[in-house]
């Protein structure tokens, strides 16, 4: 899978999410990094829709974490925006097992990486012309292999 993506519209961001949904497995951790409005929720919406989860994916900021079921895998959508300090699994108030789900975390850099042995980091950004960009950064040999050699 390509590592660098240019995403002119929110639909492109959702399409990248859909592509990621095609390669995720139970227990996966995906950490989304980027400023306000870079497309973190849109990307997660794309993952959720392609997994086939029942209800629409909306921002989980207020409830910190939301579990979406009914798809190929449960999607645990975490927003660490309001969390302080290092979060552990209990603090995230998860009512689903991360081992059976794909866990997507917004605003969690430096807080949640210990939830899994390895993880995929997605660096999202917003350019001045309002186009979003994404860079996929694998952490761990498994993710390196899954993304392949394409630059």
């Amino acid at each position: 899978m390509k590592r660098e993506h240019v995403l002119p519209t929110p639909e492109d961001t959702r399409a990248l999410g859909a592509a990621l949904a095609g390669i995720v497995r139970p227990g996966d951790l995906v950490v989304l990094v980027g400023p306000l409005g870079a497309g973190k929720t849109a990307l997660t919406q794309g993952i959720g829709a392609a997994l086939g989860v029942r209800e629409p994916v909306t921002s989980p900021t207020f409830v910190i974490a939301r579990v979406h079921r009914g798809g190929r895998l449960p999607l645990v959508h975490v927003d660490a925006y309001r969390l302080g300090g290092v979060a552990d699994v209990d603090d995230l108030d998860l009512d689903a097992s991360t081992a059976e789900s794909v866990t997507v975390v917004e605003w969690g850099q430096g807080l949640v990486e210990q939830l899994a042995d390895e993880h995929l980091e997605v660096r999202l950004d917003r350019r001045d012309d309002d186009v979003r960009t994404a860079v996929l950064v694998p952490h761990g040999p498994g993710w390196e292999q899954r993304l392949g050699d394409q630059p």
Partner: protein
Amino acid sequence: MTEPLVLGFETSCDETGVGLVRGRTLLSDALATSMAEHERFGGVVPEIASRAHLEAMVPTVHRALAEAGVQASDVDAVAVTAGPGLTGALLVGLAAAKAYALALDVPLYGVNHLAAHVAVDELQHGALEEPSMALLVSGGHSSLLLVPDLSRDVVSLGRTVDDAAGEAFDKVARVLGMPFPGGPPIDRAAREGDGSAIAFPRGLTGPRDAPYDFSFSGLKTAVARWVEARERAGEPVPVADVAASFQEAVADVLTAKAVRACRDHGVDHLVLGGGVAANSRLRALAEERCAAAGIVLRVPSPRLCTDNGAMVAALGSRLVAAGVAPSAPDLGADSSLPIDVVRP
């Protein structure tokens, strides 16, 4: 015969609320908040909220009973928020409510947090007109509800497809360097500003968009972009104008959609609820537009708009009066309880 006395528990987020209601009369509304404890961590931590609920629970119940001038043994029914909310936080309220119901040998009513936000208005403005429309806006919810019968039948017409309205306030406040929660400081700053100074986008208001759904993510991004552009150019940010224009965009969309929903469904009563209903511009614009459309607007006082135990007791009291059966003793917490389940 006097009306039943209902004890209500609310623990869906960071407020421990215990209220007592007899019929539609508010007797007491005791509240403890764990906000100060969260401040040390820079945000709400669910585990800390749960622990704080646990510590605050019994003293808050005692305070509610003392303020109402009643004994625990006078209570005729117990009501408790079963969802939506933080699972761990809900569990503390549920455990307490079950314990009191069991110890006092009275029925237990699990209630939907959102429906309770509508029910609380009956404590101030009397019986709800049915059907009513309800617009609930808070840090976690933005919902437009058609309420044919608040005891049994609530229909979700629309909701946010991304961020809640209150969340947009929190995030814009952060962009403007204001404290959390963002609603009060933005409201204050906006009083000195011009709401028409900057034309921020109104989400989902196109002719083909879902007429009753909301989107505040694009607005939040537009504000962040506008402020960043100023900062990059080395220009001062007109905070009051940004706050007022942002607030105007939120209030405009919320009230326009609520009035449209009333008109489309032939409903002439609108209830506002949730923490964002405390926003002065939202209240003013809602009054103006409802008056123009011949809609009766009901807004509880700001104190009752935010989470509290009295709203849970108010809905419980309604359920008792309507003859709705109590919940099963194995009632559980449901973090994403759908709104059409008034009494889980």
